């Protein structure tokens, strides 16, 4: 681009959240074996059935090989060089903090630096925050209020202790322990995560939110989230994350399972900002996540909205299994691959029930040497009479060294299905940038305006308080991008 040299002159802002916090970590020895799995389960005081479940997953994982079909490239991961469990030390073993006052002040400071002070959150915003630092939950707010409505929102560990029947009933029913290489690994060694249960007929009045953060050096993150929405209930769940600067790559293999029963609706929103590595592609998080929702009930609805701006590598396909008749699946995605980032993301919509509907809107932005891949599958099964899908995949290129790739797969086994697919690839043009500058808008703001316009249809789907955060995040990530 003609203006590239000028644009390249813009100062690149480094990773804003790249700092580490000095907290004593309770860490298991490096490496992975049955003994590691035993140790994790023991540290968490888990029941025997869960240990068995983990071990089964571990044994299956041993028989599996790492997938290579994704359009991403990285050196082989040494699974024996990873620390599989690390939790901030507590005052007494097994005793979680009862209130914020009991939380390590260092930790609270860290959140304040991130602009997500729990105190502020609790008092002002009405957002219940289940903060996960490394692997163990630190504080859960608004629990009492939610509890009165019968809503359970707690750490996964706590759910295992307090609501074992619910966990046992639903764990692994959407993403089986043997589902794929990374899901099996997570099932064997998952450390903590979030659990959410909305009882029949209850509309959760708060946006539930979790902030994830990797902290201890060389620690893998194996979060597990399980959300169950009973008949006629509604919940909107927000997940956002930032990670501190690291030299070595960090593996993040989370699993998220959503279950929606008859007439239930789950809205799951993510703003992902893991450390992407430096300008030269050194370091950064490997974000290998399995997210899947099951529309088990009639007229149920699951909606995934994601803004993926971080990680060195993103491998992620939030999907919907549309089992119930008239159920609805949605996927709205903005994925940014800048510098040397690689993103291979998309969705699967599996139509099983009659008159099931799905919508896919994917916006991929590539800058620097970034490679952005949309990979999607829409499958209409034999019994899915009258199923409908609408897919739109748009790619925006911010330079001439980046790449955009799309691999849409459509598999229709029922002749009554109606499928629509649209795709575009465009480039931010010099003419657009000059036009905006001629109106007094700086080059950086011009790029931001154009990109935000491109992403608008997805940002609109985010909860209000996340829209601004997502736009700001994108602006931050885009500074000095066009070139």
């Amino acid at each position: 681009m003609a203006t590239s040299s000028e644009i390249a002159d813009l100062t690149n802002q480094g990773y804003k959240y790249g700092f580490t916090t000095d907290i004593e970590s309770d860490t298991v020895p490096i490496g992975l074996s049955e003994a590691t799995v035993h140790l994790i389960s023991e540290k968490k005081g888990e029941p025997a059935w869960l240990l068995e479940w983990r071990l089964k997953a571990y044994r299956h994982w041993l028989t599996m090989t790492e997938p290579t079909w994704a359009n991403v490239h990285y050196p082989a991961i040494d699974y024996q060089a990873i620390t599989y469990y690390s939790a901030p030390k507590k005052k007494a073993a097994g005793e979680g903090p009862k209130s914020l006052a009991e939380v390590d002040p260092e930790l609270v400071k860290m959140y304040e630096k991130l602009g997500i002070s729990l105190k502020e959150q609790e008092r002002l915003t009405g957002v219940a925050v289940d903060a996960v630092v490394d692997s163990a939950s630190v504080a859960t707010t608004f629990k009492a209020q939610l509890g009165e409505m019968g809503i359970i929102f707690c750490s996964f560990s706590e759910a295992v202790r307090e609501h074992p029947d619910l966990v046992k009933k639903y764990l692994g029913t959407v993403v089986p322990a043997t589902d794929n290489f990374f899901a099996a690994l997570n099932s064997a060694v998952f450390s903590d995560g979030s659990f959410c249960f909305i009882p029949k007929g209850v509309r959760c009045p708060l946006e539930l939110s979790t902030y994830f953060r990797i902290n201890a050096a060389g620690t893998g993150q194996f979060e597990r989230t399980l959300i169950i929405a009973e008949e006629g209930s509604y919940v909107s769940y927000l997940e956002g994350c930032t990670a501190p600067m690291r030299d070595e790559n960090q593996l993040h293999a989370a699993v998220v399972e959503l279950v929606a029963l008859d007439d239930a609706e789950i809205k799951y929103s993510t703003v992902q900002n893991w450390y992407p590595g430096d300008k030269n592609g050194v370091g950064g998080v490997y974000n290998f996540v399995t997210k899947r929702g099951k529309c088990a009930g009639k007229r149920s609805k699951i909606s995934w909205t994601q803004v993926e701006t971080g990680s060195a590598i993103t491998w992620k396909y939030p999907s919907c299994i549309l089992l119930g008749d008239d159920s609805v699946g949605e996927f709205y995605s903005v994925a940014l691959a800048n510098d040397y980032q690689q993103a291979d993301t998309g969705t699967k919509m599996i139509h099983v029930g009659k008159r099931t509907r799905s919508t896919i809107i994917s916006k991929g932005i590539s800058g620097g040497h970034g490679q952005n891949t949309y990979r999607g599958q829409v499958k209409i099964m034999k019994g899915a009479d009258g199923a409908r899908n609408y897919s739109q995949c748009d790619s925006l290129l911010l330079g001439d060294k980046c790449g955009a790739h799309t691999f849409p797969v459509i598999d229709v086994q029922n002749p009554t299905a109606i499928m629509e697919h649209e795709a575009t690839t465009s480039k931010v043009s010099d003419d657009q940038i000059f036009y905006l500058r001629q109106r007094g808008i700086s080059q950086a703001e011009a790029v931001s305006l154009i990109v935000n316009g491109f992403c608008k249809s997805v940002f609109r789907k985010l909860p209000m308080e996340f829209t601004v955060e997502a736009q700001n995040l994108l602006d931050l990530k885009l500074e000095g991008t066009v070139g």
Partner: protein
Amino acid sequence: MTPTTSAPRKPLLLIQDLHVEVDGKEILKGLSLTVHAGEVHAIMGPNGSGKSTLAHVLAGRPGYTVTKGSVLYHGKDLLAMEPEERARDGVFLAFQYPVELPGVSNTYFLREALNAHRKHKGLGEVDAVDFLDLIKQKARLVGMDDKFLSRGVNEGFSGGEKKRNEILQMAVLEPRLALLDETDSGLDIDALRNVAEGVNKLRSPERAMVVVTHYQRLLDHIVPDRVHVLQGGRIVKSGGKELALELEQSGYEATKA
């Protein structure tokens, strides 16, 4: 005491011996032009004479290399300024081909632009509610339907709507120097009249306009104070508004040296 003579007015725009290259080819070859506040100058000339180059180089479009000459804008070295600095300092270019900005609402875009101007002047940002009042009032001034305000900038606009949107932007940003690049191109006679009316409402003693056009017909509606004929990268003839009519009669050939 000698009778006081009015002090010579300082020009708003003073272009001297301007030479400009594009891709190594010289397009402007020693252009000089003086424009005072309150004046409307028309630059006419055949295709390829350098009219649009002049408009773009004044606005600071990248890709144009000034090899010689100077441009003073209210005494400042215009060529040393970034495009956005020129804009904030009151230089406005109404584009011949306004670009589309999908998903960027016209109102939001214009508010960002106005706030950039206000910040430059040391004024506070105008809030969304006040701005909505302002832009609706300006839309009425230039005869634009409110429905275009919430749409993406020029997204799916007709040629006439795009040109009118340029004039709306000019009305909101209130430039000191407006450059109108072939504002008549692609417009039918009704659209042309509408756009010209909008421009005429924006004429003021503080504002100068440089209207670049190939045809006389725009100047029937926007009547200039001065007309210049640009040919071969230089101004070869200057005169009053009657010069435009002369050109219409005899064509550009007659002005060739």
